[in-house]
């Protein structure tokens, strides 16, 4: 269904971000950029590589009942926007947590998991999910 949505090249390219949450940091703005950027909104290009903390808080969330084709087998699942301790934000699935226990403000911890199986080659694509603490 998906047009070769993850090839090995694409998969390898994002490993530092998907496996280690590697961001970069603008000292001028005290701002973490995830994924890393070449330039901060302030114009600063001297950004420092930093690994993000693995704990954060749910800002908002939903339970997906009709996912895209590559997630058809996993419906329903919870997913939310998580603010990490440094202020950087990610969109991530909320795993191993009963849906009715999820709420805005809930503390979560990041774990590395399989995200999807994709493409004709059946490449397993890994990345981050969060679980309630």
């Amino acid at each position: 269904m998906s047009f070769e949505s993850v090839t090995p090249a694409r998969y390898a390219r994002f490993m530092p971000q998907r496996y280690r949450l590697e961001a970069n940091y603008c000292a001028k703005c005290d701002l973490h950029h995830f994924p890393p950027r070449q330039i901060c909104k302030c114009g600063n290009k001297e950004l420092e590589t930093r690994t993000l903390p693995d704990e954060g808080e749910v800002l908002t969330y939903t339970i997906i009942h009709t996912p895209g084709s590559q997630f058809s087998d996993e419906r329903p699942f919870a997913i939310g926007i998580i603010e990490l301790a440094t202020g950087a934000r990610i969109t991530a699935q909320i795993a191993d947590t009963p849906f009715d226990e999820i709420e805005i403000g809930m503390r979560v911890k990041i774990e590395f998991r399989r995200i999807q199986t994709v493409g004709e080659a059946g490449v397993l694509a890994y990345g981050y999910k969060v679980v309630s603490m």
Partner: protein
Amino acid sequence: MRDVAVVGIGMNKWGELWDKDLRDLYVEASLLAIEDAGVDHIDSMYVGCMSSGLFNCQEHLGSLMADHLGLTPIPATRIESACVSGGIAFRMGFMEVAGGFSDIVLAGGVEKMTDVSGDGATFALATACDQEWEAYNGITFPGLYAMIARAHMHKHGTTREQIAMVSVKNHKNGMHNPNAQYHLTPSVEDIINSVKVAEPLNILDCSPITDGAAAVILTTVEKAKELGKPIIRVIGAGQASNTLALHNRSDLTRIQVTEDAAKMAYKMADKKPEDIDFAEVHDCFTIAELVIMEELGFVERGKGGAAVEAGETDVGGRIPINTSGGLKSKGHPVGATGVAQIHTLVEQLRCDMGECQVKGAKIGLAQNMGGSGGSATVHILEAMS
């Protein structure tokens, strides 16, 4: 800068049109617009379309459509900005005429979405959000708006019922629109009890998957007078961008790109929100309409739900919104939607809306939006007497 008017509009019946392909839809709507305008030639064309690559395995739409309309060798350009592709196609047409590069421009939009399965459509639409950092992790478009809804309910006390009322109102209006995909009148309860898509949003909170096209003809006010058409002038045109990923926006209860585009349009038009008589806005999901009303300055921030509940946005209300039925009932062929909004503005300003006519409508506003709010256009049209 020259004064610009919309002199022709065209749109076909929207829905699941298995027997028509991408070009059929676009050509049909365009021929209606050309006929309505009564022009004998077109100088240039813009085609708004989001993802004919993934939906139809066909790119290069400018050439395809100019060819099948018999308009070659005119310049013909396809514009893509997710669900605001049509709104930007219109803005490009406006600039081309206003700037003096062309006298008569066709701005159209099209999307043929039902050649792929439902899952396939969800996949294709998700390419409007950040593929690597949002879609990769499983989020969908209903999911993004559901997260906005959850945040809005949490911060402003917006109720599930208020959100559903947007759908009730728009379906009610859509009953009078012969081109609408759906003619039905769900109740608040029907909506709240309909199939779950992305909690708290259900299927009746979502605009459908649709095949359709719309087209309009832009020219100078001078030329419009020669054609003997009612003069519907474009007095404001705004476009803005914002972060592609929803999670990078500082306030998750807002869709700020709409405010930024509106500022540009209000300034050009020298108008304020209270000068607007009616509006067509991008209700891709019920919650979107509430937030957009706030961003356009029609209601205070956080008061969108209360305003809909009070009937302020009904056809007879203070600021009627989506008198066409909106994306909800009309359907949402994503590239066509922004152009269809202009179609409705012109119908209202020509006093051609029948049951849904806004009495004394002189100034209308159209707000079109891409993705979860990564891009938007706002246009203001005025009927000249």
